[in-house]
């Protein structure tokens, strides 16, 4: 009995000592990182906000600064050359940048379906891409930050063999003035943002989805520069792990995410943000695989689409555009 008492006392003392040592371990300064978002603060980036607000980033010893997307902002350049370490960007932008030799790599797919949709008023009679002939379409993107709107349009048209010279293409208007004014019969938009605003205005719309016509793409990707992946893969893992936790929380109960979003969002309308949140659920969670997961065949298909329609500067190995290294590390290699 005495021996057991001694052993117990020793274990207790050892535990206390270890605990004490842990508590007094010199604190490491958190890693400062910057995340360049694709657009203005809104529900689209809810998972990042939740990771920040719930302390998932600080638990990984990371201090994150969010930078809003702006018109004509070259996000890939900001990730590759600074000031951002991470960015949120469409896969089309990654592939085109990669084809130009930009060292940017996708580490996770937040939106695993593209929210890009082309809309026309119901009474316009425009129901399918073939009906676009002879109309004005607002879809051109000059900056490259909304390249997906433009590229998916081109892919769809080319795939259907429709001659874009028989349509009038004008610049995409983020506030849809050209569409509301009737200047454009068709406008591209995101189902998770613009479409909600239009429906809130009570518009009756016909939706033409590029994915129905062979333009199947991921959308919001988390990207980082190749140098960071090589130089500090641990930081990438920690950042992504916290981010995915944030996204997991966000979609598990999207209504609870709304108050967090409202702390950041420019538009403080809770109903709008909740609707956006609801609309992006199927994009983030498709019913298959883990959040953020990517598939080789999807990347190959996206690459093939861009390559087949001559939208890449030059061919390259598509596997350079993304890495499963971090997702596999977080979820396990066999995760699906």
């Amino acid at each position, binding site marked *: 009995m005495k021996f057991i008492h001694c052993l117990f006392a020793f274990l207790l003392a050892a535990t206390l000592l270890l605990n004490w040592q842990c508590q007094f371990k010199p604190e490491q300064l958190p890693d400062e990182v910057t995340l360049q978002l694709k657009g203005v603060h809104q529900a689209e980036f809810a998972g990042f906000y939740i990771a920040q607000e719930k302390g998932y980033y600080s638990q990984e010893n990371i201090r994150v600064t969010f930078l809003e997307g702006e018109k004509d902002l070259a996000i890939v350049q900001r990730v590759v050359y600074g000031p951002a370490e991470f960015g949120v960007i469409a896969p089309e932008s990654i592939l085109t940048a990669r084809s130009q030799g930009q060292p940017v790599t996708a580490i996770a797919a937040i939106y695993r379906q593209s929210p890009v949709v082309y809309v026309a008023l119901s009474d316009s009679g425009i*129901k399918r891409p073939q009906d676009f002939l002879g109309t004005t379409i607002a879809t051109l993107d000059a900056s490259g930050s909304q390249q997906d709107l433009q590229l998916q349009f081109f892919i769809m048209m080319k795939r259907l063999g429709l001659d874009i010279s028989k349509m009038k293409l004008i610049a995409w208007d983020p506030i849809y003035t050209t569409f509301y004014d009737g200047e454009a019969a068709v406008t591209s938009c995101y189902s998770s943002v613009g479409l909600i605003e239009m429906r809130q205005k009570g518009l009756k719309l016909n*939706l033409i989805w590029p994915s*129905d*016509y062979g333009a199947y793409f991921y959308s919001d990707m988390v990207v980082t520069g190749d140098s960071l992946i090589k130089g500090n893969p641990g930081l990438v893992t920690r950042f992504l792990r916290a981010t995915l936790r944030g996204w997991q929380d966000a*979609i598990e*109960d999207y209504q609870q995410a709304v108050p967090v979003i409202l702390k950041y969002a420019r538009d403080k309308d809770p109903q709008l943000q909740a609707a956006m949140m609801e609309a992006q659920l199927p994009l983030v969670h*498709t019913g298959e695989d883990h*959040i953020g997961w990517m598939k080789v065949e999807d990347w190959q298909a996206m690459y093939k689409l861009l390559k087949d329609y001559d939208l890449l500067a030059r061919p390259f190995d598509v596997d350079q555009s993304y890495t499963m290294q971090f997702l596999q590390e977080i979820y396990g290699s066999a995760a699906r």
Partner: protein
Amino acid sequence: MKLRSRITLLFALLAIVPVIIVGFLAYYTGRQSIENVEINHLVSTNLMKSSELTRWIEGNQLRIEELAQRPLVVQNSALMATSDPAGPAYDNARLDLENDHLRPRITPTGGFIEISVISPDSGIVLASSDDTQEGKYHSNQRFYLEGKTHTYTQGVFYSLPLQQTTMVVSTPVKDRQGKLVAVLAGRLDLSDLSLIMSAQSGLRLTEKTYLVNKSNFFVTEPSSGGGYALKKTVRTEGVQAGLSGSDGVGFYEDYLKVPVIGAYKWLPQYNMCLITEVDQAEAYSRIDSMAATMITIVSLLALIVVAASFLLARTITQPLARLVAGAAAIGRGNLDQRVGTAAKDEIGELSRAFDRMAMELKETTVSLDELEQRIRERTAQLEAANRELEAFSYSVSHDLRAPLRAIDGYTRILQEEYEQLLDTEGKRVCSVISESARKMSGLIDDLLAFSRLGRSAINPGKLDMEALANSVFQDLTTAQSRKRIDFQVDAAPPVMGDLSLLRQVWVNLISNAIKFSSRRRRAVIRVHGENTEGEVVYSVQDNGVGFDMQYADKLFGVFQRLHSVREFEGNGVGLALVQRVIHRHGGRVWAEGQIGKGATFYFSLPRQGVI
């Protein structure tokens, strides 16, 4: 605690505790059996639902396979795959497919909501029961890719273009040579699935069955509705257990935080978990209502038992209380008190015995008042007798003196007048007569003094006993005699009393001391006095002849003597006189002595004075 309360409590405990124990056991076993019934029901519901799900999916797979094997479907599909889309043959084949084969399969009563024929090369929809689907590409869709080789069911997923959750069954369409000519894909009506899941398998109102996918999202709406399918996650204990790949049951809180009994079943072929739950409140409602009934019965029983035991206790305690009251009354002297009970039990017997005792006590006991009265009467009688006796002895003494004087006188005459006539013997006789007459006279004097003492009034005053004793000693002795007497008065506290009477006491006691120590060469006489509780005790001690203590009680009797006259003169009235004086002052007298070693005579007087 009173006996009545104790008896009531005891009976209540004896009655209620076993009922509670039996009730609890009944409740517990009832609950157990209900749990077993519920668990069996939930598990069999899960089995039934999963087999219904499988049958539904397999049935639809068979339907789509049957369609894919129809010769005209194969023929038209092959034609469309090979002919020019702009040509008439293509259009004819499409219309034929749509009108004759695809649209008739769409029924409003469930099954497929849309069936498409998809090109095996491009993934484009060639023909569809819904023409808005024509021209769409499914090239990257899993149901298309898998459907090229075998019949495939794509589990519930969210279709962005359709803006709803959906499920697709696909199968290859092959010509006689086995060449793939199309993929046939049918979109299933998920309301069928919801119906299968929501159909109640019993009478339980709160029972719900739903499917959850691997990512914890609801696949079908739970019965509460609310648009949960693929929009909300559920992470209850049951779901987590089911998603870990096991089948079983559990008690936990459901997604609405309601305690439920739940059965979970992992469906590996669909990568989903089937959950059937029923609210514990409903499951246990029968046993809970039984428990409520039991509590009511126990409460009523408790009330009845308490009332009955209270009454029973009263039948015991009431006679006892009467007994106590009777005892108290008798204690106060009321011997007429009777408990009086007709009860035939032990307490009744006790009461009757008590009454008998009181009766007998009354018969044998004289009341205190009566006793006192008798004492007073006796005392008065005794006092009267005493007075008569004193009067008698006084008159006798007084009357005796005259004849005595006559005897003495005549004897003197004989001696003086007839001296010559008397011989020697005659002279001696005369002198004896004369002497005896003188003695008798002395005796009569003493007797008179003694009886006078009994009648004279007491005049109390403060007396200096020390001075009194000294003065008496001085009076009784001469200067010559004082030389051989060591007389000493210690402290002798003053007291209230009659001066002449108490002086007589000192005279008698001190003279006795002198007398009985006269044979000592050196007589030692000590007078002492001290205050004790309530009285002052005085003593006169000498070193004389002493006395035998066995005669101590005789010392103070009239004419009682312990020594002969020859030894010490006296006629035995002195100490009797002392006793009478002290008694009249309300005090006591006693003596201690030993033959040859002296004697001590004590008397006490009340400190408050003469009573």
